[in-house]
């Protein structure tokens, strides 16, 4: 007995030391030699990084284009974005590689888990990507902390195409950061919905947000939009992000008697519980859910019944019923073939990949400076899975480079327990309604006078420059 235990102890020790050695090896990674084009020669795929998924059976000498992504694999969005990136890489690699200029590259997506708003994980992830693996492009980041990430990417001249909720990444002092999935110019969505709800008779609105950074930013923006659209905005309600029991929140909402409730950054279980609790209080009115994917809607209908959510409008991230663009349809087909399943959570947030792809294809270069020069003087919209996404300047922050994006969005409406496509929000409307909401007309007018008006993709729009 005693001997057996001792042996087991030794076994545990042995396994742990093996694990430790594995850890040291993995932290070390492969010694990669940097080439001037910002790509690296693969050293035969020792697999130490374990991230080179997505097929691709190119020879060892083939040049490799490493595309990094800092993703929170703790969240469904992160997982979905990883799947999309693997798919995009696979499509290129199956077709023999990505031809850029004279060279054909094998695409290797590199994923780095950053936890969820975790400063240390974020830091070690970006340092591994930039300093160890010599990744030159970080596209599609989700859950990282931009201030941490940028403090590593900027001095190392790494292109950062990410997302942040404050304006850390669009400061004029930064040279290699582009907020490719911005929400600053995304007020069109709420503006449209506010107009729709006002038409149906809503007069006052209450914004409900989780007590997080996104929540606070969201509450401010949504509130401003509703005010601009002509609604009376009540004091927003913030609730702890890990709340499970929404009854007190619903009770508080109902006690303020708003006509409409806007949930900002409330999704999944929280959204279902929140709406369920609202129904329990007997409150009836307009609801704007923060995010609504098919599965959540089905669950919601199972919980509160069809009638309660009839006519609810929200931003849609599911391109399937909308998109007629053949390229997008191909992607959706390929996704369903590859994974046999469908989730729409990643469709919207994967947008930066298309901006990156467009920049490389347009410049036919892998040089970071060239790419940055192209992106920061971008003039046109890029097609993403969810419509056009376009980069704009931020003259209100004295940043005259095009570094902040208006993302593509659709509005959907719930009819008979099903999500139906209602309309597409034009890039122009996203841009103009946001400027209108923030009351920045004068600043932008000066910018336009000097640099000219931006051109937008050809879409029907509700607003024009004269409407500001």
């Amino acid at each position, binding site marked *: 007995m005693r001997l057996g*235990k*001792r042996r*087991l*102890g*030794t*076994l*545990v*020790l042995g*396994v*742990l030391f093996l*694990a*430790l050695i*594995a*850890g*040291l*090896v*993995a*932290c*070390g990674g492969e010694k990669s030699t940097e080439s001037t084009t910002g790509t690296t020669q693969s050293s035969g795929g020792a697999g130490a*990084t*374990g*991230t080179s998924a997505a097929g691709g059976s190119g020879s060892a000498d083939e040049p490799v284009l490493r595309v990094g992504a800092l993703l929170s*694999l*703790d969240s469904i969005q992160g997982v979905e974005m990883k799947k999309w990136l693997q798919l995009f890489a696979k499509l290129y690699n199956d077709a023999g590689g990505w031809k850029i200029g004279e060279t054909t590259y094998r695409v290797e997506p590199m*994923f*780095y*888990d950053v*936890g*969820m*708003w*975790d*400063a*240390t994980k974020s*830091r*070690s*992830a970006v*340092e*591994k990507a*930039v*300093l*160890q693996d010599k990744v030159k492009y970080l596209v599609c980041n989700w859950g990282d*902390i931009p*201030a*941490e990430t*940028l*403090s590593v990417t900027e001095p190392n001249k790494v292109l950062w195409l990410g997302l942040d*909720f*404050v304006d*850390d990444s669009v400061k004029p002092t930064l040279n290699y950061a582009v907020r490719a999935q911005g929400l600053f110019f995304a007020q069109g969505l709420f503006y449209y919905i506010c107009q729709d709800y006002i038409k149906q008779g809503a007069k006052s609105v209450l914004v409900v947000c989780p*007590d*997080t*950074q*996104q*929540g*606070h*930013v969201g509450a401010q923006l949504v509130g401003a939009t509703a005010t601009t659209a002509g609604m009376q905005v009540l004091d927003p309600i*913030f609730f*702890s*992000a890990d709340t499970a029991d929404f009854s007190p929140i619903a009770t508080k909402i109902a006690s303020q008697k708003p006509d409409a409730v806007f949930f900002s950054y409330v999704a999944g279980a929280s959204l279902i519980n929140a709406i369920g609790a609202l129904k329990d209080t007997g409150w009836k009115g307009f609801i704007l859910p923060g995010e609504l994917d098919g599965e959540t809607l089905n669950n919601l209908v199972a919980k509160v019944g069809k009638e309660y959510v009839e006519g609810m409008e929200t931003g849609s991230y599911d391109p399937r019923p909308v998109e007629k663009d053949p390229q997008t349809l191909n992607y959706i087909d390929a996704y369903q073939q590859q994974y046999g399943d469908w989730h729409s959570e990643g469709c919207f947030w994967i947008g930066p990949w298309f901006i990156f792809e467009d920049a490389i294809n347009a410049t036919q270069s892998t040089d970071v400076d060239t790419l940055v020069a192209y992106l920061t003087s971008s003039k046109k919209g890029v097609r993403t899975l969810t419509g056009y996404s376009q980069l704009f300047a931020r003259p209100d922050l004295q940043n005259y480079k095009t570094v902040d994006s208006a993302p593509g969005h659709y509005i959907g409406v719930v009819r008979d327990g099903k999500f139906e496509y209602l309309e597409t929000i034009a890039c122009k409307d996203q841009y103009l309604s946001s400027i209108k909401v923030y009351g920045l007309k004068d600043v932008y007018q000066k910018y336009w006078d000097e640099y000219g008006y931006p051109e937008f993709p050809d879409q029907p729009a509700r607003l024009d420059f004269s409407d500001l």
Partner: protein
Amino acid sequence: MRRAMLFKSNKWWLIPAFLLAVALPFFVGAYRLQIFIFVITYSLLALAFQLTMRVGLPRFDVAAWWGVGAYTSGMLMLKANMSFWLTLPISVLVSVVLGFAVFSVSVRRGMMVFMMFGMVFALALQQVFGSVKFFGGWGGTPQLPPVTIGSYVLNDKMWIYYLGMALLIFNLGVYQLLYKSRIGRAWSAIGSGLRLASSLGVNVVGYRLANVLVGNAFLALAGSFSVVYQAMIIPTTYGFQQSIYVMMYVVIGGLGFAMAGPIVGALVLTLISESMRAAQQYQPIVTGVITVLIIMFAPWGLLGVLRSRVVSVLQRLLSSRAALPDIPSSLGSPASVTAEEPGKDA
């Protein structure tokens, strides 16, 4: 009352370990050095946990006090433009004073209340960091100013690493001095026999309070240190989960090893976690399984196994009596089952 055996009889390994630590920046790249900087931070946290553990009080507010240190330093640098070197002692002071207010409520109520009260405090404190506008909200503070020495900006990884090393060695020194003194003797006595110690006139509540506050000072140093390499401070870093990891560091390293245990534990777990970067979703499972295995088959941690290996080899060579590492018995070493009577706090 345990002898710090590692530092008494086996001192020799300290020298190569120290040399290795000093030489490390010359061998590893920037990213790996950053990992070791994290290891240093976690070691500081684990040391504070271990310190308090040795008076029989497991604490689950480690991450919260780490946050207090970081926020004090960061806020003073941001809002008052203070030099980092000035904020370092201030953060220690704040942590100790605030700690005194909190712990004078809970320490006298015994281990269980201390532990649970700590959890509740940590929860509330995180809410304060997140929800109070002054601290910058859940998205974290604005970008912190760089740490400077005179006109030199401390942003070289190597010097940050050495600063961390210096702090770690300072902490170890304080730890050692304390445990070699009369105070430490009282702490050890409380750890291995609460009632016996109080029957001999040791003021259990007072000494425990002092111990927890010294731990707080260690945590404040760790918090201030993390300000040096972090671009900003974000409340989610200082959550409950981090406190649990700290506890795992200590146990995996070896509970009976006052100083080497926490460091080895932090090193092993951080490296394992880091090596699983590509498969982070499995990392908690792996960590959990390792912990369970360690508890079940090697209750005195990795160093305990190593020690008993070494001892058994020596035993065969010298055929001398082997000594297993000793554990403060109130933590439940087999010997304490009969020794410790359940009953009221002293």
